[in-house]
């Protein structure tokens, strides 16, 4: 079974975040997350002690694989904390342009200091809510103390 992969392509909400390495002309924050080969040395970082700070990027359109193949959808992301964080909460949401309700949400608590891979799969009911004519967005709401 061939797999389609959507990666961050466009910035949606990036205020109070900065990119490592710093962005060059014409670069977006999304470029720090969307490399084909995972590179933990590139990332986006929040301001100090963020409280419900939003970071959102667009991943583009998902092609409908058709009846019988709408399964096994997965989202993966690599998170970490820095600065001696004692507690953290990353609310990760898959959203779609123009749709208020999230397709799926996960909350990652007490994320460690070392980059950690989280892989989450969508349930069939969650997959059934996807509108393939609307772009997919990854939405993170981050609190760290």
């Amino acid at each position, binding site marked *: 079974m061939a797999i*389609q992969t959507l990666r961050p392509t466009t910035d949606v909400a990036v205020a109070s975040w*900065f990119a490592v390495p*710093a962005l060059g002309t014409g670069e977006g924050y999304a470029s720090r997350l969307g490399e084909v080969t995972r590179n933990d040395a590139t990332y986006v970082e929040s301001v100090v*002690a963020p409280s419900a700070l939003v970071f959102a990027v667009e991943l583009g*359109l998902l092609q409908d694989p058709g009846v019988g193949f709408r399964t096994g959808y997965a989202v993966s992301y690599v998170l970490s904390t820095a600065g*001696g964080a004692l507690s953290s909460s990353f609310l990760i949401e898959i959203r779609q342009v123009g749709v208020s309700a999230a397709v799926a949400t996960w909350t990652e608590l007490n994320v460690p200091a070392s980059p950690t891979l989280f892989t989450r799969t969508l349930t069939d009911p969650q997959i059934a809510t996807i509108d393939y004519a609307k772009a997919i967005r990854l939405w993170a709401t981050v609190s760290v103390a």
Partner: protein
Amino acid sequence: MPTRLYRLHGGVWAPNNTGSPPSAATGRIHHAMFTAPVAPPPPEDFHWGFQQFTTGSSYMATSQETPAQQYARHQLVYGRDDVQKVFYSGVLPNTWRADREGVNTGTKHVIVCHNTGSPTPTGVNQILAGQYDTLLRSYWRSVPADRTVDLIWNNEMDADLLPSEGGTGSSGQMTKAQYKAAFNHQAQLLHDDQAAGNVAGTVYAMANFMNTAFQQGVWTDDRVPNKADRISFDTYMNPPPPITSNPPVYETTGASTWAGAVALHSAVAARVLDEHGNSYAGRWGWAEAGSPWRVNDVSGQARAACYARMCDALLASDAIFCCLWDSRFGQWDHRIMDYTITPTPSATPIFQQGVWTPYTSGGVTVNKEPTIGVLRQKWGTA
């Protein structure tokens, strides 16, 4: 006490002179991606294609591309173009036209439409009297041996039926019986010629209908000529807002959303097989599908995705071809080109022609992605 450093917004390290441990805690996101299965590529015997126009028709004057140019563009942009639909608004030519229906040098499959005679009682009588037999024989005998032709007489016949016979237009003149008699006359002529070994190419008599007839609830089995080798439907994805300058026959009645349009067309696909007891499985397809620029889809992404989903319905229903109406003529531009229009078509006429500029999103210029990419993935050419 040693000076402690903590990180400020922007990654700058600064001294902490407060004497108390500051919170330097931050959150980082290093990588993200979304994965899902891809639909399997269509079977090799399913033909994806596009419309083409010919001189001699009312379309050519404004289509702005020759068949060869259009075929070349499709090969370049989409990666494949398996079947084209070519129009002769009047009679068939005497011989095969290599520069028109012959431009497909790949699969060598073409749909040829003609209105030999005319879709009127007078035209039907002329056909039944054999007035065009010599011309018709001359044409299909000239089809090269390696070519496949789906030959349509009276494309979108539903609009030419009398309203009292379930016609979708207001000026139709034929009865269903007259249409079928004229079609069957030509089909029998073809079959007899094939049986006599006079036809080198592969030629099918194909009947063509409009999805609108389904939507209006007037389509019935008894408009299919019993000598048709294949059947096809022309269908469009036109959810509101209304195409005010369009004939109403092209509206997707009842479809308030793109998904609604897909559902309607999927229902047609299912009904074709149901009504014919699968007798047309492997012998039918959509000869036209697509949508012009919409005010709610300036980028074309929704149209491409909708079309891809419509094709899923075909693949699930044993269809063998689907042609995307991908031409620009008059004020309608159905092409899917990853380009938007300036100014944005926000008022009538919706399909105004303007200056084509690269599609941008979030400050990013998109080049052949994701709109074309949706179709290339569908066609296995990504």
